């Protein structure tokens, strides 16, 4: 029991790194995903192809490989690009590279969710907006987006939870700076000290589980608020359809 509490205390600072990675990448990924989804729905051939290709590539390859690839790619550009700009230490820091790759990755998954929702927005609503004489940007802000986000929210909730889970592999792929260790590395280090697999990994899992539940709770509240105009608001279910 004491060992369990010790582990809980030791991993408390570690979970902050996972939370940071998720919190730093979710908002940026969200915005990027909107543009990518619109790009995939665009009638401009070039934009359409690029968005489609991007989404396909990042959903079709493992995040683990993406981490390795972008770190070594950024490293090889260091002398010619980052150093002259004076941002070398910043760009190659895991606290920057981690969220960067997570953003690139989650943007693709989220864009696919948004794209699906975009196609499900009732045509009649858009036609009515056009009939009112709304400009395309007005149509998007007032009609398409409110519909889209309601349709996409349950799937997006799952994406956020799985993005949080994906933070577990950041430090398995990137160098560790100073004592900055996330849950996985902490659990692994503790395990290699006393081989107690049945203690350290489950404690790390508990942290992941707890944060996942909190995310579900918060996102569920937001969903209820989004759906407050409906007599019986739906509920977010833990039913992921896309993951990395």
């Amino acid at each position: 029991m004491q060992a369990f509490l010790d582990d809980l205390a030791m991993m408390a600072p570690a979970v902050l790194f996972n939370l940071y990675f998720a919190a730093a990448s979710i908002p940026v990924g969200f915005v990027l995903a909107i543009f990518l989804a619109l790009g995939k729905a665009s009638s401009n051939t070039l934009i359409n192809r690029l968005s489609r290709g991007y989404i396909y590539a990042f959903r079709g390859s493992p995040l683990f490989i993406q981490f390795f690839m972008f770190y070594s790619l950024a490293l090889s550009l260091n002398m010619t690009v980052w150093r002259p700009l004076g941002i070398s230490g910043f760009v190659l820091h895991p606290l920057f590279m981690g969220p960067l790759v997570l953003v690139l990755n989650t943007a693709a998954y989220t864009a696919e969710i948004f794209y699906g929702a975009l196609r499900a927005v009732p045509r009649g609503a858009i036609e009515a907006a056009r009939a009112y004489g709304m400009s395309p940007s007005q149509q998007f802000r007032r009609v398409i987006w409110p519909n889209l986000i309601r349709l996409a929210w349950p799937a997006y909730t799952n994406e956020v939870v799985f993005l949080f889970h994906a933070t577990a592999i950041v430090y398995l792929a990137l160098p560790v700076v100073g004592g900055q260790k996330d849950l996985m590395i902490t659990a692994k280090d503790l395990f290699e000290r006393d081989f107690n697999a049945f203690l350290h990994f489950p404690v790390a899992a508990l942290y992941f589980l707890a944060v996942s539940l909190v995310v579900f709770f918060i996102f569920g509240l937001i969903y209820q608020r989004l759906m407050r105009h409906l007599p019986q608001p739906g509920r977010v279910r833990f039913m992921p359809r896309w993951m990395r």
Partner: protein
Amino acid sequence: MKKIMLAAAAVVALGGSAMAQETVRIATEGAYAPWNFLDDSGAPAGFEIDLGNAICEQASLSCEWIINDWDSIIPNLLAGNYDLIMAGMSITDERLVTIDFTQNYFPPDPSRYVILAGTELDFANLSGARVGVQGGTIQASYAETNLGPNNTIITFATADQAMADLAAGNLDTILADGAYLEPVVTASGGGIEFAGEDVLIGNGVGAGVRKDDGDLKATVDAAITALKRDGTVDTLIAKWFEGHGPYFAD
């Protein structure tokens, strides 16, 4: 317990006496040239591979090489996945708490700093520098204690990865074994150079064994003594480390 084993771990079954002994499994990292590395054919090679094979021949053991990631090389020895570590591992008091070592087969060797040519660093009072080390090495614990508070210590899984970051300018300096760095500095043609003062840590490089494996330790110790006496160790050191040795000639 991250461990990487090669599917085709080279089995060095040496003839001589047909001792009914089990195979001795020797772990090495395979990413620490010229100590141990994987050659173009994908097989382990280097100073310690040559020496390990010589030890096995001397002691009439049948040996098998296993490639294991550095960061879990001691845990996996303790867990019994192999019997011996020959991976450029320095004998230190810290490690002697958990495992035993044979006598050293490479004398105490200063750790040294390298920098990119054209950069400067005030080693007398080092602060604000990005120092690269390989995780779990004597240099890593030295850097953490002595440089940690004022500098950023960046830990890499292999020495080669740290070297890649130094070459790309992401590190100000690397602290590593002199005998690992010397060939790199020589081969870099002036691109990478030594700097600062040498750091004396460690009691030489020996083979790691489990504490309860006294028999194997005695066997390997005897073989190393014999190989030191007949000059094999010095020959191998001269072959792999230019300008080193002879250390064990009478």
